[in-house]
């Protein structure tokens, strides 16, 4: 059996794939955080809870309404996005004139509420969500066995990230978003409804989180705490990448997932902390982040 540095290639590529999958979630989540932060100047602490909501909405659709994976992949993000729209309109919009830290505190509170409600209703242990029939099984590649669903997660995440990037960089709406990120008052003075743009952006950012949650449901179990665990790592990812660049957020997310996977092979004890260690190193060397503009 082929080995690399004494590790079977099979195991290595398996962990790399898992790393890519985690990286997919990091990428989608940090992308959403970056888009929201860019325009609203708010760090959305509820992002993890909204990711968890995506997974739960998919689970509920399946178990209460018999709606399967494919429709859920669309419905759950839309639902999470609409809940975000409501949240922005009712609560977050009141904070734009205040110090940024209040946005963090408010969304932290919202995250506690959402997590608590789901834990109350579903308990703290995970609920299973089956892989859709079309994506079950796998392919035997020369160097590894590739479970189809895992391959799909990576492909779908990449596609969504790239589509988001294109939408922001190449469309009219994206131009409004970029311009308003730079100077919202002027864009508003041109007759653009910036408050609406803020609402839609927040809704879109959290819909991305919901989408990641649906993708995650069959890989990880559906669990009220799944968002709390990941969001802190995603914060570190965002610090490492810097929030100035959309492409930077995507690359950093996937890259760090892979690094985490590699560490799991060669030094399993360090896999939970490696991203935080990298964050510390980046802060020492390049405080603004790898893709960040200096503040």
């Amino acid at each position, binding site marked *: 059996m082929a080995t690399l540095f004494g590790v079977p290639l099979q195991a290595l590529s398996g962990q790399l794939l898992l790393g890519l999958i985690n990286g997919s979630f990091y990428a989608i989540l940090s992308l959403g955080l970056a888009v929201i932060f860019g325009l609203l100047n708010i760090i959305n602490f509820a992002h993890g809870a909204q990711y968890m909501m995506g997974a739960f909405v998919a689970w509920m659709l399946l178990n209460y309404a018999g709606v399967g994976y494919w429709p859920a992949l669309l419905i759950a993000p839309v639902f999470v996005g609409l809940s975000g729209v409501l949240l922005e309109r009712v609560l977050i919009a009141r904070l*734009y*004139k205040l110090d940024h830290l*209040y946005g963090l505190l408010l969304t932290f509170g919202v995250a506690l509420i959402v997590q608590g409600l789901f834990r109350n209703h579903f308990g703290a242990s995970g609920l299973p969500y089956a892989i859709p029939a079309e994506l079950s099984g796998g392919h035997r590649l020369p160097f590894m066995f590739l479970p189809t669903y895992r391959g799909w997660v990576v492909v779908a995440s990449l596609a969504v990230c790239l589509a988001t990037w294109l939408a922001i960089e190449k469309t009219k709406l994206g131009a409004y978003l970029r311009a308003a990120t730079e100077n919202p008052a002027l864009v508003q003075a041109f007759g653009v409804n910036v408050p609406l743009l803020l609402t839609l952006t927040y809704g879109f950012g959290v819909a991305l989180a919901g989408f990641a949650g649906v993708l995650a449901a069959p890989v990880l179990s559906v669990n009220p705490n799944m968002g709390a665990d990941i969001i802190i790592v995603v914060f570190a990812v965002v610090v490492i990448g810097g929030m100035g660049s959309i492409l930077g957020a995507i690359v950093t997310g996937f890259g760090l997932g892979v690094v985490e996977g590699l560490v799991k092979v060669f030094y399993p004890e360090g896999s939970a902390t490696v991203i935080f260690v990298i964050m*510390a190193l980046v802060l020492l060397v390049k405080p603004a982040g790898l893709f960040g503009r200096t503040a």
Partner: protein
Amino acid sequence: MVDIASGSAAPARIPATGGASRDAAALHRAIFIGLAALLVVAPFALYPVFLMKVMCFALFAVAFNLLLGYGGLLSFGHAAYFGMASYAAAYAAKVWGFTPELAILLGTFVGGLLGLVFGALAIRRQGIYFSMITLALAQMAFFFCLQAPFTGGEDGIQGVPRGKLFGLIDLSDDRALYVFVAIVFLGALALVYRIIHSPFGQALKAIRDNEPRAISLGYRASQYKLAVFVLSASLAGLAGATKAFVFQLATLTDVHWSMSGEVVLMTLVGGMGTIFGPLVGALVTVTMQNYLAQFGAWVTIIQGVVFVVCVLLFRQGVVGLIAKFIRKPL
């Protein structure tokens, strides 16, 4: 109408007390005396362990508020200093047989040292990033405690002996421990009060209110920030280490991010940037937890609701509102 011309509008300040006038200083002295008197009579009405818990968390919140209210720095990872100190003190007392005062000193030192390392990293970024970095570093500390051989994993360090203070006074008696905790608490509170009203504290406030101007006046802002961070982490460590003796226990709960959130909540409820707010916040929060403990996840939900309500309607906190009403800093 939503005004998003936030670039030009001055952002709302964290409410804070100004320099204490002679008038206010007299009021503060009276409150200190009243507080001491209250601590003398309270054990006749309430469980000493409950009171000690409140004091430990109040001290934790005071430490946190020193950083947020006077340094303008929102740390979202203060559980790291609280919890690591708690582990250090518990381990030293149980395994090495340290006397309580030495174990607590060690815990305080561990909190401060960790604060020095994490603080030096975190102050390299500002605002929101600072908060995210402190949270991420604290999560690293959490995983360390989860995996390290000496923390007892999920069980934590249990059955910590309370031992004899200075080798003389037996703290296994709740009343003796109560007196000790009360002295530590009042002493630390007085220390923080001195710090806030010292030239160092004045410089901190200047940096908090306008960092570029403070720098142009010759203050080395990052040194001040690091110093207050280390002070705050040390005091959080003092609180955590003391807590380890009260409950004879150090667990993962103490280093978990939710603990970091709780201390933010205490300070927010009581009033950021007030001297006595964190005490009130800790009392309210600990009481709330005690009554709601039986309802499971409802504690989290209610904490979340309190966060939201405080941020939207009640940013000055209880003591901040009272201070505004009587027009004196508290």
